[in-house]
Structures are given as C-alpha cells and as structure tokens.
C-alpha cells in the first residue's frame, strides 16, 4: 500500500512540472557552498582530465565498491545476509589504507606472515625449532639404553610425542563456542582448567625454559673452555700428551671420565714439566672454576635488553650448526669405521648390552628433544594451506627423528671400541674429541656463537612469561629484570661448577615439563572435550589414561636412575 501512494505521488509531481518553467533543476553550485558539499571520498578518475588516465582504482574494484556500499544500505547492521564473503573481496595484501593527507599504505600486520608460508617453509621451521642441544646427548642416551633398545625407544618416543602434538593442534578446533583464532596452547589450558591451568602451564613452561638456559650455560662454559685451550695450545705450540685414555691415531677420541672411575669430572689431568706459563693458564682457565664466571660478564648485559629482535636475526646459525654436526659425524664415522658387537644382556669390557635397564634416561632426554608443544600452534598458524597442517607436522617429526637417529647411531657405532669402552661416550659427545681436534673446534665455535645468540631470546621468553603474569608488565623496572636475570644466571653458574652433566639436566627438566605439556594436558583436554560432546568411548579413555600414566612414570623413574 505504501508503495502505491509513493508511486502516485510521483505522477503528481511530474504533472506539476510540465506547467512550471523548468529552471536549472541542478544542485546548487555556488562557490561558497563548495566546501560544505565536497565529499571526503572521491575516486581520482572522476576528477582528472579524461585524456590522461591515471587509473588508481580498477573498474572492477570501483564497481564492487559501489555494490558493497549499496548492499549495506539494504539491511540492518546485525543482519548478515548481504555481507561480502571473503572470496569476493580483495585479499588482505591487496588492501590499502588511504590517509586523508593523500598517502596510501599497506597495513603491515595484514601482510606480514599472514598464512603465507609454504609447506616446505613450515616443515623447515618446525625442524629448526625442535633441533636443540639435546642432539649432543643422544649418543649418550643410546649408550645408556643399549643400541637396539635405543633405536626402538627413539622411534616410539617420536611417534608418541607426534600423537600428543597432533592432539595439541586439534585442541583448539574442539572449542566451538568461542573464537580461538588467536589462542596459544596455554589459553586452551586456561579454558579447560581455569586459572590453575594457566598457572601450571606457565610453571611448566618456565621449567623447560630455565632448564634449557642452564644447559646452555654449562655447554657454553664447556665450549668456551675448549676453544680457549685450543687457541692457547695453538699459539704456544703445546702438544697435549694427555694421560687421558685416548686412541693413538690421526683421529683421536678421548675418554675423559676413564681415570676417575666413571664420575664425570671437569679437571683434566695434564702434566707439564716446568712450564709455569701453562700452569698459570691452567689456573685462570678452568672449566668449572673460572670460565663460567667469565661468561657472566659477557651475557648478563645482553639479557637486560628490552627487545631481543636483534638476536633473532641469527636464527640461521642454529641450522648451520646442526648441518655442520651432521657433516662432522659423517666424516668421523668414515674415518673411524664401525665398531659394533651385539651382546644382549651382559656387558663386556668394551661394549654395552643391547637391552639395558637404564633406558628411561633416554626417554627423559627425548621428551625434551621432541618438545615443541608450547609453540606448535603459532608455527602452524602461518601455514598457507591449513589443511596440510597434520601432514606437514608428521613430515617434520619424521625428519627430526631421522636426524636424531642418524647422529646417535653414527656416533655410537663409530666410537672406537677396541681401545675404548662404549661406556666412555660422554653426555656431550663433542667432549669425546680432544680440544686439539680442528673439526670439533669449529663445531664448538659454531655452537658457542649460536648459543650466545639464543640465550638472550630464551631469557626474554622467560622474562615475558614470568614478569608478565606476576606484574602484568614485561619490563616493570630495571631492578626486577636484573634480579630475575641474576637468579637465572646464578643457577647456570652453580650447575656449571658442581653438576655439569647436561644429560642429567636435560632428562630431569624434559621429563618434568613434558609431563604437563606432552603427556597430561593434551590427553586430559581431549578426554574432557570428548566427554562434553558425549563422544567418549572406553578404548579412547583407556588409551589416553595410559599416556598420562606413561608420562608420570617417565618423571618418577628419572629419580631412580
């Protein structure tokens, strides 16, 4: 009815117009009015000379713009009926923001890494992040577990942690009631377990971070010491005729802990005759007494920086170090040859049995070696094809497992067993090469530099998580930050002085933080979400409870080994 009236009014008006003298029926165009009538959005093509066409907006885009404007007038803001779907509007990287001052710029947050990584890049990033210093302890872990058991354990742990990682990735999608696109795994834990979940995930995350930082400090002291010793020996042309047990050929391998009955000790027994200079050097350059403190002067200032983005540029050093280690191990294996003998249960003078009861030490190390669960969601978020996430994750885990297997098996197999016992394999396998060996010297330098650039990053992460949650501000004041850094560095120094067994530190911290992030949280959250959806079946429940029990056992048994 209303439309009819309107239409008939139309006719009336046009009739009247026929009689009236039609003056200029146009918009008022007095210049004084001009500014008040000027629109704030003008398509440039409309006001330039038709002849020179500076087309900044394509016809297609301009038509789409008008279309969207018009459609938006047809509905209420709450109605979603005529909202342009994503496949119709330009992609985020084609959007420009026009400032009224005349310039146009792209929004950085739109274009930066927004789902733009190909599968290959994602797989590489996952591999790179997972490859840590635990690679140095894998041969020792295989030795502790026995060769056959070691290989089986590595593969099984890889599969188990892969499954738990898959659970972590899928945990976000099971929450349908909220928008979880910006969530990381601690947010998921908080959703399910309340603030207890948030605090406990923070605590365990800190355990892994601080454990890693302590290991780094021990290793850095080690590498710095060896590097310094190499340089000193090189300059003074001292030939290290150690009384340390070693092989007598061009590829020396040493057994540092043989003399002290299996107790890892940091003093090397070198005797120099009448050489006070070297003795002075010995006094001031000691692996456990002095070098850790020199590092303090080097690294403590770096820890206090507000933003470590400078250090993230050195990320590539990590990859280079791992690749170099692979090369080093291959080279040494070629030179030394394989020395394997299979004794199943009884240890011999030079070999260890294939199946040993200390294999949980290997599982502890591997829990940290395969740990990426607290940041996997962020890494996969930038994958261009999200549907390939699971496939890429599996490929990455497979590559990591292969790398660990390769290095572990080669070092173990090529360890020269007739003169030395397999039991000599150190928790840091580079320790089995004397400090005069050039190739391992290069490896130590690489790793030293890499660790010195990663250490401030780890410190930053720990600071952000701890201070951010306690004080709400990631940089409350220089004093807070300084105290935190002193505590962390102090812990590292103490460990480097009194308990420099990186294998031990790795397995304790690995089992502890793995307990939460790898075993308990993913399985528990899956069980709870299934229960909420009424899809929980007995096999699934039993399987996931079994995983939780494995995790707890993993931690407990570390203390008995």
């Amino acid at each position, binding site marked *: 009815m209303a*439309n009819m009236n309107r239409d008939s009014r139309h006719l009336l008006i*046009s009739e009247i117009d*026929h009689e009236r003298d039609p003056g200029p029926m146009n918009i008022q165009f007095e210049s004084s009015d001009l500014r008040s009538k000027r629109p704030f959005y003008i398509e440039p093509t409309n006001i330039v000379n038709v002849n020179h066409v500076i087309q900044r907006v394509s016809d297609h885009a*301009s*038509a789409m713009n*008008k279309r969207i404007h018009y*459609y938006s007038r047809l509905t209420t803001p709450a109605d979603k009926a005529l909202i342009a779907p994503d496949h119709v509007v330009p992609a985020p990287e084609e959007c420009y923001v026009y400032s009224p001052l005349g310039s146009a710029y792209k929004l950085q947050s739109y274009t930066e890494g927004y789902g733009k990584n190909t599968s290959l890049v994602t797989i590489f990033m996952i591999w790179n992040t997972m490859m840590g210093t635990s690679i140095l302890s894998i041969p020792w872990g295989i030795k502790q577990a026995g060769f056959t058991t070691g290989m089986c354990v590595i593969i099984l742990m890889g599969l188990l942690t892969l499954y738990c990682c898959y659970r972590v990735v899928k945990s976000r999608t099971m929450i349908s009631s909220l928008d979880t696109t910006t969530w990381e795994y601690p947010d998921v834990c908080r959703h399910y377990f309340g603030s207890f979940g948030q605090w406990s995930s923070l605590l365990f995350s800190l355990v892994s971070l601080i454990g890693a930082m302590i290991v780094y400090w021990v290793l850095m002291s080690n590498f710095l010491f060896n590097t310094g010793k190499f340089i000193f020996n090189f300059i003074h042309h001292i030939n290290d005729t150690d009384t340390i047990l070693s092989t007598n050929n061009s590829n020396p391998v040493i057994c540092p802990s043989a003399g002290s009955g299996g107790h890892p000790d940091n003093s090397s027994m070198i005797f120099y005759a009448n050489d006070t200079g070297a003795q002075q050097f010995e006094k001031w350059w000691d692996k456990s007494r002095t070098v850790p403190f020199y590092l303090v002067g080097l690294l403590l200032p770096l820890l206090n920086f507000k933003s470590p983005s400078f250090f993230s540029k050195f990320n590539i050093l990590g990859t280079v170090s791992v690749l170099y280690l692979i090369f080093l191990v291959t080279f040494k294996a070629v030179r030394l040859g394989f020395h394997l003998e299979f004794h199943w249960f009884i240890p011999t003078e030079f070999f260890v049995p294939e199946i040993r009861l200390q294999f949980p030490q290997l599982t502890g190390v591997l829990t940290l070696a395969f740990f990426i669960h607290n940041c996997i969601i962020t890494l996969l978020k930038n994958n261009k094809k999200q549907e390939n996430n699971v496939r890429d994750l599996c490929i990455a885990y497979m590559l990591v497992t292969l790398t660990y297997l390769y290095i572990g098996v080669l070092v173990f197999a090529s360890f020269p067993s007739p003169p030395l016992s397999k039991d000599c394999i150190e928790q840091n396998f580079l320790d089995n090469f004397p400090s005069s060996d050039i190739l391992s010297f290069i490896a130590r330098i690489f790793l030293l530099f890499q660790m010195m650039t990663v250490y401030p990053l780890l410190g930053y992460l720990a600071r952000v998580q701890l201070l951010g949650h306690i004080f709400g501000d990631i940089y409350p004041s220089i004093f807070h930050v300084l105290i935190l850094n002193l505590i962390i560095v102090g812990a590292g120094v103490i460990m480097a002085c009194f308990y420099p067994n990186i294998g031990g530190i790795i397995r304790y911290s690995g089992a502890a933080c793995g307990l939460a992030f790898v075993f308990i949280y993913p399985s528990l959250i899956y069980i709870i979400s299934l229960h909420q959806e009424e899809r929980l079946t007995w096999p699934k429940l039993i399987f996931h409870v079994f995983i939780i029990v494995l995790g707890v056992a993993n931690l407990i048994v570390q203390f008995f080994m």
Partner: protein
Amino acid sequence: MPNTAMKKKVLLMGKSGSGKTSMRSIIFANYIARDTRRLGATIDVEHSHVRFLGNLVLNLWDCGGQDTFMENYFTSQRDNIFRNVEVLIYVFDVESREPEKDVHYYQPCLEAILQNSPDAKIFCLVHKMDLVQEDQRDLIFKEREEDLRRLSRPLECACFRTSIWDETLYKAWSSIVYQLIPNVQQLEMNLRNFAQIIEADEVLLFERATFLVISHYQCKEQRDVHRFEKISNIIKQFKLSCSKLAASFQSMEVRNSNFAAFIDIFTSNTYVMVVMSDPSIPSAATLINIRNARKHFEKLERVDGPKHSLLMR
C-alpha cells in the same frame, strides 16, 4: 482476489534459500525487513506491490516447501498463482546438494504455466555462481543450461548465470527487461535520433522501479563497462536516503568542467540519463530538449495501443 486478475504477474520462484529475497531486495531497492535465516518458507501472495515495467506486480514464491502443509497449500492454490503470469523467473542454487529435487519442483511449475499462462516468458537463473571456481563456471553453466532447456520443452526458457557479487545479476535482469519490451528496437532508434540531435555523448533509458538499463546509445567508446550497474546502485542508494526523509527522488544534475549529466523522469515507466561532454552547452538547453523528447516518447508508447500493455500507464 479480484484485483490480481487484472494485473499481470512476474513470478520469482525457486527453492527456499536459493537467494530470491536478496535478489529482489537488490534489484528493487527494498529493505530486507527480517532475518533471512527463516524458519519457514515464504508464504505471501501479497508480497510486494512493486510496479515493474508498468503494471506488472512481482510475486515471490518458495518452491519445495518444508512440510506437507506448504505442499498442500501450493497445490490447492496453484491455478490462482499461475494465472495471468507474464514472466516466470526461476532461481536455481548452483551449490544445491540435491539437484534432482530442484528439477522435481521445477517441473510442476512448468506444467502449471503451460496450463494457465502458456504465453508467459520463462527465465532460469543459475544463481550463486561466485561459489564456483572461476575456471569451472562456464562449464558448469553450460551443463545446467542444456539440462534446463531440455526439461522445459515445449516451452522456451532463457538461462542466465548470476551472482549478487558481480555484474552478472544486473546484466541478467537487464536482459530480461529488454526482452519484455515489445517495441524495443523502435525505442532504440528514436533514442539514437534524440541523442544525435542534442549532441549527447551517451543517453541511457532506465526502467523506473529498478533502474535496469532498457536501452542506451553512445557515440564513442566508453572505458568503464560496469558503469550501468554503478549508476543504478548509486541512484538506488540515493533513493533509499531520500525515502528516509520522506522525499522522493525525481531528478539530478551532475556537472563539472569536463561533463554534465542529467538524470530525469522520462515516461511513466522510464528514467533517462543524458551525458553531455561539451560544457559550453547550458543546462537549460538540454533540459528543454529532454522535456520535448518526453512528449514524443510518450506518444510512442500510446501509439502501440492497448495490446502491448507493458509500457502503458
């Protein structure tokens, strides 16, 4: 309902959720008054009184109702619905998961048309084409077109592929309107004469309710192929703004140093847009020309007599 026997109908039909309400809202510049996630199908014969091409009334029907009540109502009212139909526009959702069911509901409509309004023109719109990947669109549309042509025999149907997110919807409806005008060639010739006399760059003739382009004349190549739809959207948006102030849009002049454009009511069912690129010609001259042409074109419509009811008042 005695009045509906006099008015000829345009039936807009299709399965529930195929996009008819959005389409109608966009073409006719009506507000979508309610949430389109409806719980029930559209049951409303008096749905719109939009006058379209003179005295045509647009009726919107959902086909393929959700329950037997709808089915029964539809069947019992069938003759009423399909009598006096000038145009049947049937909308198919290209993403439909049950294409056989779509056909199942389309065929009874065809039968009813054959019985009650055998002279009706039939148009089939394959809608929501933006959901199909670009390189597959032509192929899929050709398949559907063949199927529909085959199914519609002995009636003739014209098929279009449409999407509300590109220019295809506007073009399809413009083609439909073009085919509904009986003397469109004569109209175009007169329009060309008119344009050449007044030395215009371009002259467009719009349908009054929907601003669909009925015919146009241009004396030189224009760069923007989307300009018809853009003008239509701009004016419809302006009409919506005017209606908020209880004002009705009648005419518009846009002028700058490069051109002058005049949009004005022309005949009782059309609007005209005249674009002059010679800024030295004063507005008054063009407006007088338009006024005189108006009288001529109205005579044209009346000359065609009562047989061609489309453009009659």
